């Protein structure tokens, strides 16, 4: 671990620059993706990636250069390139960063169980083959797949103010999906995949529930195939954590990103229905809504000690008892806006610059068991596992769809329904939050696929949430 520290430190010390500040962020990544589809092992896909981003500040203007040439000459070339670019754009620059403080922190951070042995490749294939084989023989089951992603990432950040921040992380992404087809309609049911990932080791596979899941996932796909469509109308909506994560992500996370509010993302990811002056008093949701930026749940995907600009990360309330408190804004956004933020300046790799991102964005548990949540609904529907997401560029009008729906009548769970969709408007939706599940309903989830930024970046984000109930929501089904 951190084997490249000494040579990198030496090369950083040897760099020459006329800039008032410069930094180097080195990233080394290894990925492995394995899959067994319909009992056939697919070829393994491996990635070995390393490179560095050099950032300079010249008279308050910053620019960067990214390179995979990590020799002394290569790093110096990139630094010179960044410095030349900073001077070239100076006359056109939006920001004057001469007064922006820089990090001088020194610390290490590691994922939980980082040194524990992960199953060897052949053992992983065996595990996946076992799950694939457990899908029962049924001519309606036309496709199924068990998969396992493994990523290890080491990052070393050095800067001319003396900072040295190292982090080593391991991420695990198990998954299973089954598709059933009746000659006209098809329905899929999944476990994990884009809706689950954690830091850790083999323990993550166990927590995901992949072991022994094949038969159950297949059974649920067949149940969906036989189920009626979700009826249209207004109902109370019970969202389980694997849909709550998407709801949090799209209609709390993105609108609270400070760079969107400052207009940086207007050409691509979009803007926000939230304005800078809303922080401190806007009633975002009902009094039951407590949302935190929490980098301290060890297994959650975006737990870390410092962000990619070197800002120390601490748990912060973004929304407390329904009131909007602070944005998702890193050091630069805080400097630009004058608002307090969080340590969420993140880059997807060595070839992209840090920007405001979600990290771990969670909803704090309430006081109701799942039975109490269901028992409190007169006319409603339970939905779980996201499969479709769409929201406007201000992150307001949304429509989401799930794999699994189950009607609730008079406080009791009733039949399964297929194609459960719902729509609403973020600005009002969270004020309809009427009950929040307790710790027994709380799950730590996350996704590897959050896209944003120009140039584009995909990062891992964590979302932990209890099950939640929203009153009077417009729900509907599909065409067939």
């Amino acid at each position, binding site marked *: 671990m951190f084997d490249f520290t000494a040579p990198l430190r030496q090369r950083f010390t040897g760099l020459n620059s006329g800039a008032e500040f410069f930094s180097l962020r080195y990233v080394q990544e290894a990925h492995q993706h394995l899959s067994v589809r319909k009992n*056939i*092992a*697919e*070829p*393994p*896909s*491996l990635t*070995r*990636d*390393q*490179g560095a981003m050099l950032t300079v500040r010249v008279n308050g203007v*910053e620019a*960067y250069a*990214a390179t*995979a*040439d990590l*020799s002394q000459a290569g790093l110096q070339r*990139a630094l010179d*390139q960044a410095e030349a*670019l900073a001077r*070239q*754009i100076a006359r*056109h620059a939006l920001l004057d960063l001469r007064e922006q403080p820089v990090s001088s922190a020194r610390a290490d951070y590691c994922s939980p169980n980082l040194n524990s042995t992960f199953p*060897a*490749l*052949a053992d992983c*294939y065996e595990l996946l083959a076992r799950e694939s084989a457990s899908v029962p023989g049924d001519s309606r089951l*036309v*496709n199924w797949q068990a998969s396992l992603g493994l990523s290890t990432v080491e990052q070393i950040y050095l800067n001319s103010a003396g900072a040295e921040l190292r982090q080593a992380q391991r991420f695990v992404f198990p998954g299973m999906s089954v*598709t059933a087809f009746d000659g*006209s309609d*098809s329905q899929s049911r999944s476990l994990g995949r884009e809706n689950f990932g954690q830091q850790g080791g083999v323990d993550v596979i166990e927590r995901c529930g992949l072991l022994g899941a094949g038969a159950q996932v297949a059974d649920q796909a067949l149940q969906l195939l036989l189920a009626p469509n979700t009826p249209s109308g207004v109902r109370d909506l019970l969202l389980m954590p694997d849909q709550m994560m998407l709801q949090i992500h799209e209609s709390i996370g993105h609108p609270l990103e400070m760079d969107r509010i*400052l*207009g*940086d993302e*207007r*050409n*691509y990811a*979009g*803007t926000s229905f939230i304005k800078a002056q809303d922080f401190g008093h806007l009633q975002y949701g009902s009094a039951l809504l407590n949302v935190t930026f929490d980098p301290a749940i060890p297994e959650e995907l975006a737990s870390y000690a410092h962000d990619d600009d070197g800002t120390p990360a601490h748990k912060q309330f973004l929304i407390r008892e329904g009131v909007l408190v602070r944005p998702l804004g890193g050091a630069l956004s805080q400097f630009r806006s004058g608002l307090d933020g969080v340590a969420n300046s993140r880059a997807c790799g060595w*070839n*992209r*610059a840090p920007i405001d991102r979600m990290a771990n964005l969670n909803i704090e548990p309430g006081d109701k068991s799942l039975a109490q949540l269901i028992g409190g609904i007169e006319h409603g529907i339970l939905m779980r596992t996201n499969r*479709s*997401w*769409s*929201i*406007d*560029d201000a992150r*307001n*009008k949304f*429509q989401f*769809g799930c794999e699994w729906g189950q009607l609730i009548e008079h406080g009791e769970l009733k039949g399964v329904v297929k194609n459960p*969709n719902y729509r609403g408007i973020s600005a009002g939706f969270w004020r309809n939050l009427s009950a929040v599940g307790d710790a027994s309903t709380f799950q730590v989830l996350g996704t590897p696929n959050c896209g944003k930024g*120009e*140039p*584009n970046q995909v990062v891992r984000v964590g979302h932990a949430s209890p099950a939640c109930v929203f009153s009077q929501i417009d729900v509907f089904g*599909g*065409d*067939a």
Partner: protein
Amino acid sequence: MAASPLHNFQDLVAWLRDNVRAPEQFTLSYSAEQSQFIRFNHARVRQAGDVQQAGASLKLIADGRQADLHLTLSGEPALDRERLHQALAELRQILPLIPADPYLLLNDSAWHSHQVQDGPLPDTARVLEQIEHGAGALDLVGIYAAGPISRGFASSFGASGWHQANSFNFDFSLFHANGQAVKANYAGQVWDNAAFARRLAQAREQLEYLGRPLKTLAPGQYRAYLAPAAMDEIMGMLCWGGFSAQAIASKDSPLQRLYAGDAALSPLVNITEQVSGSLSPAFSGEGYPRSDVQLMDAGQAREQLTNARSAAEFEQVANGAEAHEWPSALSLAAGELALDEVLARLGTGLYISNLWYLNYSDLPAARMTGLTRFATFWVEDGQIQAPVSTMRFDDSVYSLLGSQLEALTTERELILSTSTYGQRQTSSSHLPGALVKRLTLTL
């Protein structure tokens, strides 16, 4: 870099040919870019940087098994040979540990392809001056991306392909003080000040309409014109498995009913994966030369996009599709509606410049939802009346491009991908606008 991308690639291929011997086989897929990215906000530079990157995907095949390793290259030949050596050693260790692959299919032909477009790139200082001068007091936001892109392929069977192009893409929006915006794009190989000024003037003209009082529509059904950029979003959604041989066979395609013969689109719809004349390489990362593929003819399904693995599994012929089996040069044939007649033919309804964030409400039914974004107008009697607030649609492609499709425009737009996930992309689409009799708005 110490060596040019082509020399670096050739050096790696030569090393592999010396070090991988039958019965082992290899394929090597290479990509590189030297890009400059300049972000703008409020017509000033928000963030700027250079990215120099190269990578290679090495596939090793032996004893009926295959494994892939993607490695980042430094550009320094000796170091990259060492990295390739390590990658090869790792793959040799892995192969005996994995099961034999019944769907292993290799293209053993020794094809050759070489395309280089290395005209000079725009001078950054001049581009910055032009953008600042052109924008003036406008609230411009966006990104300028420029530089050479390379793709290469080689195999132990003697195949070799090289594709290199210099290009720039300035993707931007102009915002009115009321928050409404118009989207524009200026891309190509040679920066022409006059052409850029014309593009900016067109956007500025639309911006003036956006200053009118906003019209809020009730959910319901409306006549609508979908401009090529809006059509690009719809076609982009269909590309998610729509034409993929594996998705169709696995009943995970939005067009599975079309390919099963149970549904059809309008006879006006003719879709081709038009590789010839596009900016995409003439070969796939799997090592197949690519030619044009007719996907849809007069609203009926024709060929699918089939990669090597699908070809083996579903007993089809591989036709140069990449691993994900998405189109990269999608072409929808033109219709007969002249561009200057669009507003008159629309009469009363919606003029939609762009759509945003589409996804499926019901995938087997090809029913999709999404939102208007950028310059959507309410039109009455062929005259633009007012910008329209963001609205959500929810409709099936079998309706939009089927029973409700009235006309396609005679003029088409070549839309170059602005995607930079991982690296700058080379995909494009060539699309007309579409006049539809009924678009369902839901929120």
